[in-house]
Each structure stands twice: as structure tokens, then as C-alpha cells.
């Protein structure tokens, strides 16, 4: 592929390179879309581009529309997604119909010319609402509803490069060269789309080969078929089109990047943090984390086992949390991992953990609710629930991570805090983060510490597990040699049932006061971060995966002359009241806006409940799609123009 270097040099000279690009790759669920995205991410990372990509998909296994929305940058590790995109790689007609309105004029569409005659209302996998909207839009443009008329229009009116390739034909032709059986051939559509995108972006030959080799490691035949197909398509595109979206060489200079999803990075954090028991019941978007851990259950070094993690798929979420509590009682760092419906089932046992001061970690990936809701879509609508779940009162820590790096460290910190304060810790994440894949610099382990609190692993005789001399009692674990008792009933220091009112008051208060202790001790900077200047005109306030969009938005707003700042809440309980007030007081009360993925603006409710500060303005989104920095920018402008509440809805 020597042609590549030559070609690229020419394009750089012509000055049509971009420092970053957003693109969409779409196709039916089950058709290999993830392979395209992985190949793309690996080759981009290989070339030191920062990458972030979100995957949107239906609650369906095969057939419904799925897409990857990816942003790559030569200047930074991108933190959020934005619209419009410069390129659409379509495996099928539905993708073009679904996304063409998000394409920048002058952008690129790669599509399958063999389905050009498909019309928008003949595609059964498309939802009726969308079809009827599209029919209206296409009608208004004077189009007949066919893919052909649409791409022609885009080419003509929007100056879009419409790269129609006859996928079936291409594959048949190439398949014959490697004697690939016909049924297997269709699997290579993803390779075609990848190749075309790589060609348009101007990725290097070596990066492409690297991606193929690492994605299909060990499967030589598949590697060579892919190389053949990809190389061929790449050349074809290069020969036929002039790309308007070549990526400039990266300015980043990381020796290596780590390519991980949110699920992966949390799993890594838990493993580093000393997780030894993980129970789970499968649920989207949490299950992949347990899958990752199970694949790494045995860790050997220098020929000996240095860690073995029991990963158990239980019969339900009640058993998942109950068994994690059991494991934690023995001193193992234990966790479970779930999403809303599963957490709802864990609520009763959570209270037992609270009552018995058991350090368990619940990794909680929020998805669209209520009920089954939107099982594969994102949301941040479980904050107030997580904070108040279970009858009765007991302290808990709730951490939420804003990005992959935070998620990694928080996964470790969750265990430290759980053991230090002997209380359940809920690590609140969401589908956006779970399924977002980034190419990012690897985390440093330099400052990672494991703090086991008052764990007592060797002892003897009967012991007071709930001694009330200190707020946090000594934690004699089962198997330590001590004999201890535990009960969900109110109990005395020995852990025996005790209904005496004075004992009740003492034990209850001690448990609750641990929360005050945690509030005193956990450093503010672990709980809240402030980005931007105190002179900002607008203060955005958010939590969880809003962070990336907010940080990008404040930069973009600056370009538009609007000074914005962002306050990011990372520990929601104990709420960092002092620092929060300190920050907020520097701003005009009317200038604060919460940004959240829910309807009620739950963070604003929490803030008011805990701090008394009244944040009246909000930008919310609850369609299940992520907040794009682009729409956040316009949301902020709408607020500045006088709206009190902006509901964002972008994204198909």
C-alpha cells in the first residue's frame, strides 16, 4: 500500500485536512457494525488520534438499526460527541434515511448502491414514527422516498460526496478470489464500510493492517481475507473520490493509547482495586462488565496465581446482592453490577448491608426508565432513587463518574470508601459511559492506594462486631477466628437482636453519624470539580456523563464570546455542601443551570434538598440519546435568551 503515503502528502498540500472529524457508521444490529467501529478505533488510536464513540442500538439482537457515532481528534482526547457529522458510513438504506439530516453539507456518504431503489416506507425495521416524519421531510424536498433520489439530492444540493458501492457485487467478486463460501461473504460488509471510511479519512496502510491484525488476532485466514477486501475497497475509494475530510496527522504524542468501553474500564478498576467476588444477573448495559471480569478471573504472574476472582451469574439480582454481602462478610472485596430493574430488586438487601455495615459495592449503570423503559438507551434518572432506596435510614456513599478515567479511579475508590466507612457504596454510571469506547491515555497506578479500613482478619473468640466506642467499629470478618453475629434487626454491640429504646437510639445514631464522618473526611476535591473561571457568566452544573459535553460546551461557548464554567459533582453522598455553596455563591443565582439526562432535573432537587440552594434553570434530555456538546451550546444560548428549562432532543 505504498500509494497511501504519496496520496496523503498530496492532500496535505492541498490543505483540505481537518483536525477532527465526526462520523456515523450505521447498519442493522448483528451485521458487524461493532467490527467496523473497532477497526476504525484501533487504526485511529494507532495513529495517535484521540477517539470517542457512542453506540446506539435497539433492544433487539438482529435487524434493527444500530449506529456508532464517533469523533476523532488530532488535537485532544475528545470528551463528547457533536453534530453535524462529516461522514456517514451506511451498511444499509435505513442508515442513510435515519441520519442524512445530521450530515454536514459537503460531507460524505458511503452507501450500498445495490439498495438504491429502497423507499423509506418499505423498510420493516424502521419505526413508524420515524418513517412518517421522514416521508414528510422527503416530501417537502420533493423527493420520491427512494434512497436514490435522496443521495442524488444530497449530492446535488448539499454538495455531499455520495460514494455508492455495490456491496453485494464487490463481495461476490472479492470472495471468488479467496474462495469464500457465499454465506460467509455477507459478513464482510463491515470491512467494506471500514475500508471506505479509512480511505476517506486518509488513514495509513500500516494502521489499517495493525487494526486488522489486532482485531482478528490469531485467525490468520480471516486476517488475510480482510486485508484483501479492505485494501481493494480502499484503493477503489482513493481512486474514485477526492475526500473533503482527510484527518491531519495527530499532534498527540502518547506512546500508546488504551481502547476501552466504560464497562471495560470499570472492570479494570475493580480488578486493580482488589475485587474478589463479583455476582451478577445479566442486564443491559451492565453485563459486559462481568463478562470482562470473568474473562480475567484468573491472574497469574511469574507462573503463579496472584489473584482469582469468583464471578457468579446468579438466579436473580436479589441473589446477586445477597451473595455479594455474604462474600463481603468474609473480608473479600465484593461487588455486584446491575442496571435499574436489577437495582430495584436489590433494595431490600441493600438495607441489610446498611444495617450491618457491610462494605459492598454496587456498580449501577443507569438506563432509560421507568420499568423496562428503554433498555439499551441512556439516562440519569435514578439519582434520587439510588440515594433513598430501601426502607429505613442508613448511610450510603454514592459516587458517579464523569468519564472513563474517573470511572477507573472511582471503581477503586468505591472499595476504599466502602471499607473505610463500612457502608454500601453505589457507583452510579450510565449506559452512555458503559457503551462509549474511547482511545485514551492509560491511567496511572502511581497514586492508587488500597485502604482496608478497620478490617480485622485475624482474631479469636467472641467479638463485638458493632462496638460503639468509635463511629466505625472493628470489622471482624467471618473466618478471621473471631465469632460474631449479624442481624438485620436492630442489635446490640454483639450483633444480637435488641429492641431496647436506648440501645436503638445509640446504634441508630452511630450508624447515621458515620455519614457525617465521611462528609468531614472525604476531601472536597474528590467530590466536586470546578472547570472554568469565577468570572463566568454561566455556571453549568452536572454529574456523570454530562461532564464531557459540558466541558466541550464551555470551550465552544467561549468561542462565541460566552464565558461559561462547569461544576461537576462526583460524590453525591455525602454531598459536598460546603464546596458546592462556595462555588455557587461566586455566581449570580440566575446564572446557574443544571444539565442532566432526566425529566425532573434531579440534581437540582437534590441540591435544593441538601444545600437549600435553588437552581432554577435546567437543560435536560430524556430521549435516551446522549447530550451532544453542539446542542448543549445552543441550549445554553436559549437559557441566556430567557428560557427557564430547555429540553434537548437531538439524535435519532
Amino acid at each position: 500500500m505504498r500509494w497511501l503515503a504519496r496520496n496523503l502528502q498530496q492532500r496535505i498540500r492541498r490543505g483540505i485536512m481537518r483536525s477532527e472529524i465526526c462520523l456515523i457508521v450505521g447498519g442493522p444490529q448483528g451485521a458487524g457494525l461493532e467490527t467496523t467501529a473497532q477497526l476504525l478505533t484501533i487504526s485511529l488510536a494507532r495513529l495517535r488520534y484521540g477517539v470517542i464513540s457512542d453506540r446506539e442500538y435497539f433492544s433487539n439482537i438482529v435487524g434493527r438499526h444500530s449506529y456508532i457515532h464517533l469523533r476523532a481528534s488530532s488535537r485532544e482526547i475528545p470528551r463528547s460527541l457533536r453534530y453535524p457529522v462529516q461522514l456517514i458510513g451506511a451498511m444499509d438504506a435505513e442508515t442513510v434515511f435515519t441520519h442524512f439530516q445530521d450530515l454536514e453539507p459537503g460531507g460524505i456518504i458511503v452507501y450500498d448502491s445495490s439498495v438504491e431503489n429502497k423507499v423509506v416506507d418499505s423498510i420493516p425495521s424502521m419505526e413508524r414514527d420515524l418513517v412518517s416524519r421522514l416521508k414528510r421531510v422527503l416530501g417537502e424536498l420533493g423527493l420520491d422516498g427512494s434512497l436514490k433520489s435522496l443521495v442524488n439530492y444530497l449530492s446535488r444540493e448539499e454538495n455531499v460526496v455520495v460514494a455508492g458501492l455495490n456491496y453485494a457485487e464487490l463481495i461476490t467478486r472479492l470472495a471468488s478470489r479467496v474462495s469464500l463460501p457465499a454465506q460467509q461473504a455477507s459478513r464482510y460488509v463491515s470491512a467494506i464500510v471500514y475500508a471506505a471510511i479509512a480511505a476517506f479519512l486518509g488513514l495509513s496502510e500500516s494502521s489499517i493492517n495493525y487494526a486488522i491484525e489486532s482485531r482478528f488476532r490469531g485467525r490468520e485466514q480471516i486476517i488475510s481475507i480482510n486485508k484483501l477486501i479492505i485494501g481493494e475497497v480502499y484503493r477503489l475509494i482513493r481512486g474514485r473520490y477526492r475526500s473533503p475530510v482527510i484527518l491531519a496527522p495527530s499532534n498527540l504524542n502518547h506512546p500508546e493509547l488504551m481502547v476501552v468501553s466504560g464497562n471495560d474500564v470499570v472492570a479494570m478498576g475493580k480488578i486493580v482495586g482488589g475485587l474478589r467476588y463479583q455476582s451478577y444477573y445479566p442486564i443491559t448495559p451492565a453485563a459486559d462488565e462481568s463478562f470482562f471480569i470473568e474473562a480475567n478471573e484468573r491472574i497469574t504472574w511469574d507462573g503463579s496465581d496472584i489473584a482469582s476472582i469468583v464471578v457468579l451469574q446468579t438466579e436473580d439480582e436479589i441473589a446477586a446482592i445477597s451473595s455479594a454481602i455474604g462474600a463481603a462478610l468474609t473480608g473479600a472485596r465484593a461487588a455486584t453490577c446491575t442496571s435499574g430493574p436489577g437495582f430495584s430488586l436489590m433494595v431490600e438487601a441493600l438495607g441489610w448491608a446498611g444495617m450491618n455495615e457491610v462494605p459492598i459495592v454496587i456498580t449501577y449503570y443507569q438506563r432509560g426508565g421507568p420499568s423496562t423503559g428503554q433498555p439499551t438507551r441512556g439516562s440519569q434518572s435514578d439519582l434520587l432513587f439510588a440515594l433513598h432506596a430501601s426502607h429505613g435510614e442508613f448511610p450510603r456513599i454514592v459516587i458517579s463518574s464523569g468519564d472513563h478515567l474517573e470511572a477507573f479511579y472511582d471503581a477503586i475508590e468505591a472499595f476504599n470508601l466502602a471499607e473505610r466507612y463500612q457502608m454500601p457504596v453505589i457507583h452510579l454510571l450510565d449506559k452512555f459511559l458503559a457503551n462509549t469506547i474511547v482511545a485514551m491515555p492509560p491511567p496511572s497506578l502511581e497514586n492508587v492506594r488500597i485502604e482496608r479500613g478497620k478490617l480485622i482478619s485475624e482474631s479469636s473468640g467472641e467479638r463485638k462486631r458493632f462496638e460503639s466506642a468509635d463511629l466505625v467499629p472493628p470489622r471482624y470478618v467471618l473466618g478471621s477466628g473471631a465469632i460474631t453475629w449479624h442481624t438485620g434487626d436492630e442489635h446490640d454491640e454483639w450483633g444480637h437482636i435488641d429492641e431496647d429504646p436506648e440501645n436503638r437510639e445509640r446504634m441508630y445514631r452511630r450508624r447515621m453519624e458515620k455519614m457525617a464522618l465521611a462528609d468531614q473526611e472525604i476531601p472536597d476535591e474528590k467530590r466536586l470539580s470546578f472547570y472554568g473561571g469565577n468570572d463566568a457568566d454561566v455556571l453549568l452544573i452536572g454529574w456523570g456523563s454530562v461532564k464531557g459535553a459540558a466541558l466541550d460546551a464551555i470551550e465552544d461557548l467561549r468561542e462565541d464570546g460566552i464565558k461559561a464554567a462547569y461544576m461537576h459533582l462526583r460524590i453525591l453522598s455525602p454531598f459536598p455542601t460546603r464546596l458546592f455553596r462556595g462555588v455557587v455563591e461566586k455566581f449570580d443565582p440566575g446564572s446557574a443551570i443544571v444539565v442532566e439526562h432526566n425529566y425532573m432535573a434531579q440534581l437540582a432537587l437534590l441540591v435544593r434538598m441538601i444545600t437549600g440552594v435553588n437552581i432554577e434553570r435546567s437543560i435536560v434530555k430524556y430521549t435516551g440519546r446522549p447530550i451532544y456538546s453542539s446542542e448543549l451550546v445552543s441550549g445554553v444560548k436559549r437559557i441566556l435568551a430567557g428560557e427557564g428549562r430547555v429540553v434537548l432532543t437531538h439524535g435519532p
Partner: protein
Amino acid sequence: MAPSLADYKTDVWVDWCPGCGDFGILAAMYKALAELQLKPEKTVIVSGIGCSGKIPHFVRVNGVHAIHGRAIPFAMGIKLANPDLTVIVNGGDGDLLGIGAGHLVALGRRNLDITVILHDNRVYGLTKGQASPTLEKNLRPKALPKPNIQDSINPIALALASGFTFVARGYTMMLDHLKELLKAAISHRGAALIDVLQPCVTYNDIHTAEYYRERVYRIEDEGWDPVVRNPVERQEKMLEALKISMEDEVRIPIGIFYQDSTKDTLEDRIARRLPSYLINPPAVQKIEDDGRPILTWEIFRKIFAAHFVESEPSL
């Protein structure tokens, strides 16, 4: 020094109703623990909620009085994280066969080495006498406003169908027999269930001590050999055990119905995947070195290598 029977008693007042069948279970438990010389600090009694659920407080071994119906999953986490511990579950019939039935079934199919002692009084004792899942249709123990309209379940058949490898029934008034069952169950490697007939003197005026005295008989006395010596015998033994369990209430069989040590336990299976599992189980593994994770950067980089993309040397 070897613990004596008294060493297994706590000084907590046993607040069951005088005459409650649970006293027999407790007495048999003390004896069994003492005769097996189980180390109190290496033994854990896990219970659900109910009169039966209070038992851990009366025994001087580790006690985990969990929530209603979930003793089995609590126990599962304890046992899996530290397979060195002897784990015994106590629960009521409501607890284990009503709200907790799903976990009972799941334990059977895992064959984890846990002993489950079912306090079968056919009522919900602690909530004042409602029908439990083992109460037969049309009966009306004294606290019910109307006769029971739900059918009863056969715990022996359910345990067998679920895969328990040790299934027995005892009667709390036959203390030594029960004690021997307990010893056998605890000694058995794998999931064991003992259905213990336990008169509730306060709420069950039907299934009283007299009721059982007239009906109970020992299956071993009638020549039943419950032991599966070879996997090929499983089906036959199980069917026969099922048959015995289905005898109607005129005669109530007690004893060991089924005992199969030829099946591997969940711990065995895990140990095949994690060779150091039994030697160095999760509960006691070292996870840090002077406050730093044992997973150093070097190890991290290696085990997660597939996630790293090295930058292209230069264009």
C-alpha cells in the same frame, strides 16, 4: 481444647414459645456440632426471618441472620468467598419454600456444599400463624380466618427435582435421629436439605406432636438405602426417593431419602477454573502490598494488553 456441647451455647435468651419444635432442632444442632467437633470460628449459621430465623443468636458459632427468604444466597456468597467455612442455613417453610423457593431451586442446581435445615411447621410462625407452603389444602390451623385454599408443596420432591445431592427428613421430637441426620448432612459434600417436621405449638393445632407421633416412620427401618454409589444409579434412586416422598399423610417417612456424593460440587468446578481457589480463597487473598494494589502497572499492562494500541512508530 475440644469444644464441649456447652461451648456451642450463647447466653442469649431463647425466646421461642415453650414447647416449640424449634427447641428440638436447636438441641440436635448443639449435639451435632459438638459431635462433629466443628470449630465455632470456622462455622457459620445463616438464617432467614421467622421464628426459625432467630437460631443463629442461640448458637456460639458465627451467625448471620439475614433477610426473609435470602439465607441461601447470603450463605452462597460466604461459602464461595471462603470455602474453608462450614455453612449451615436455617429457614422456615415460608422462608425457604415461599419467598425463597427460587433460591432453593438454584442451590440445588449448583450443588454448593451448604446444608439447609428447613423448619417445617406448616405455618408462618413469627407473623402469627398464616398458612405456609407446606400446609395442605382445606386445612385450617387456628389463626386462619378460612381454610387454606392453596395446595401444599412437597419439599423432598422439590429438592430432588432441583438437584440437591443430599435430601432427608427429620422430626424434631426424635432428637438423636435428627442429630444424626444433621451430622450426615453437614458432612456431605454438596447441597443438602433436611426437612424437619417441627410442631408450632402456638399456631398449628393440626400438625402437633401427637399428629406426628402416630404417623412418622423411619425409612431406614424399612430397608431404604439412599446412597448413590455410581452415577448410573442416580435416576433409579431418585425415582424411588421421589416415590417414598409422595406417600400420603397417613404415614410420614423420615430419614435420608437420597445421598449422592458422585457429583462434583460448585467449589470443585470453580477450582478447576481457578487452580488456587481452594488453597487461597478470595476471602483471604492479598490484594495490596503496603497499601498499593498487588496489580502493579507491569501486570496491568500485560493482562489487559489486548486493550492497548501502541502508536505507530512514525509516519
